[in-house]
């Protein structure tokens, strides 16, 4: 059974009487442990697709069925609960909360789940270890480098052990060396932690490590035929 089925997904924007259709009846099936990359020219609707996938945007029409539930029909509150339980989001700019330490930022999504404090602590420690930031746990975002901030963002995205981890240009703001480190880390999420990944990127190197490579252009989604991913 597929993890996620996107059926005839359309998203239109109307601005000043003009209608824009970045997504036009898109179909996609995501299997557990898939590693999908999505490329395409700027402004084609990659972020839009990703935001629909995690339920922070609403489609004009179509369905997104996750585990048999069409999330496009959930209320805002139910959708929030669903995200808390199933989604990890890695942003281009990390979006850490400045008043919280690295540790507290990573712990934040766990506060929404019915977990005892000890279990939360354990999970945060594991996540920080996975991104090799255990020694920076008490640092505030302003005391971290861009790459470190991004790693905290990744730890926060994986700490709940989500069904799907999405990333929107996760290396877009980083220098090539740091970007390479982050890429390795993302790859490990898929290979070692067996997480399902959906990564939007402009970077061919990022796309190259994904098992499935998608291309979005003119509202259509095209999958590159079964090229083998670059080994980790």
């Amino acid at each position: 059974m597929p993890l996620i089925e996107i059926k005839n997904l359309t998203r239109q924007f109307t601005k000043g009487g003009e209608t824009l259709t970045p997504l036009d009846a898109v179909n996609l099936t995501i299997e557990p442990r898939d590693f999908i990359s999505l490329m395409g020219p700027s402004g084609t609707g990659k972020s839009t697709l990703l935001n629909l996938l995690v339920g922070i945007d609403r489609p004009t029409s179509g369905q997104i069925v996750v585990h048999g539930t069409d999330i496009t029909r959930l209320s805002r509150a139910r959708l929030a609960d669903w995200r808390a339980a199933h989604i990890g989001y890695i942003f281009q700019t990390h979006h850490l909360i400045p008043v919280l330490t690295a540790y507290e930022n990573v712990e934040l999504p766990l506060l929404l789940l019915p977990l005892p404090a000890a279990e939360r602590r354990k999970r945060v420690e594991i996540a920080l270890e996975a991104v090799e930031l255990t020694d920076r746990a008490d640092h505030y975002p302003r005391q971290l480098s861009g790459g470190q901030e991004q790693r905290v963002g990744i730890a926060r995205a994986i700490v709940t052990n989500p069904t799907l981890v999405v990333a929107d240009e996760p290396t877009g703001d980083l220098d090539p060396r740091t970007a390479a480190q982050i890429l390795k880390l993302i790859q490990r999420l898929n290979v070692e932690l067996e997480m399902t990944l959906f990564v939007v990127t402009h970077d061919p190197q990022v796309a190259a490590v994904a098992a499935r490579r998608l291309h979005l252009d003119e509202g259509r989604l095209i999958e590159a035929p079964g090229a083998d991913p670059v080994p980790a």
Partner: protein
Amino acid sequence: MFRFAPYVLKCLWRHRTRTGLTVSGTAVALFVFCVVTAVQEGLDRLTHSAGAERTLVVFQENQFCPANSRLPEDYAPAIARLPGVRDVVPVGVFTNNCRASLDMVVFQGFPSQQLRAARPLELLSGSFGQFEQQPDAALVGRAVARRRQIGAGDPFTVGGVTVAIVGVFASEAPAEENFIYTHLDFLQRAPGRNAVGVVTQLEVQLAEHADPDTTATAIDDHFRHGPVATTTRPQGVFQREVVADLAETIGFAQWLGYACLGLVFSLIAATTVMAVQDRIKEHALLQTLGLRPLRVFGLVMAESLLQSLAGGLLGIAAGLLLLSWWGFSIGTEGVAIALQPSLRLAVWGGSVSAGVGLLAGLAPGYQAARTEIVPALRQA
């Protein structure tokens, strides 16, 4: 919800200058509100006290200032014989100031044996025995003692009357604590008073089933053609009429108190709106992580509430401390309105600041909860 308490506190702490200013503004406003409410409470207490209904005050007709009411002392036995009357106490009142004042000194002279029965006083120092033996002895209320910094053993002079203080008392009725009790005949003979055989008022205790109005009318009718005509009213009514002018001012001040709450509302709302607008992205992020809109609303409300409560409690604490240290009273024509700290005042002030904080958080909280996630995250 408490899991997010550290986050809320840290957000407030991060903008501590802004938070501090808001909290101190709220504190000042609630301080004013507290004092103004204390005055209103004092007034209510005065006119609705236990004795207010069952005690009649006989005064010279058309007079309110104690200096101008001069009744023959032998009205007392005459009144005592009227139906419905249980007891009559002639009282001489002497005050330094008939106008509204924050430092009114009022002497009330009682027949030596009748003070204890007429006034339930609790002596904090000195003894009734000494009071009864010494002709120029005086018992002073706690509030006057504090205000004038006098105590047992001190002489005390006001307006040519000098008494020897033999004790300080507390009373269940806070207004009483602004009085100085002396012997009636001492006050009558005081230099320049020219009041032998004359009293200022007569206090009439009603018999159990007597109707206050009927008895009052009976007393006034009895003296209509006497040497001095009287006006008799229940004590509450009498005091209300004496302080009527003051009450108007106090009523107006109460509106200023409410205006202070309006100020707090604007202040907290402005700060919270700012905090929300600063953090549109952060709230969008929290929602992306899975916070329900209602929860985001709750976080904003908590921020608003904490600020108003912190400021409110500070202001009220300051107000109550001031009231309890100073023993303030507002007096006019021999009647004192005592400003007292009270639990009621504290609870009321606390609830009012909480209420204002919650109200002020509504609009910004709603704004934060309604944030469209994607556009907010896209903002640079």
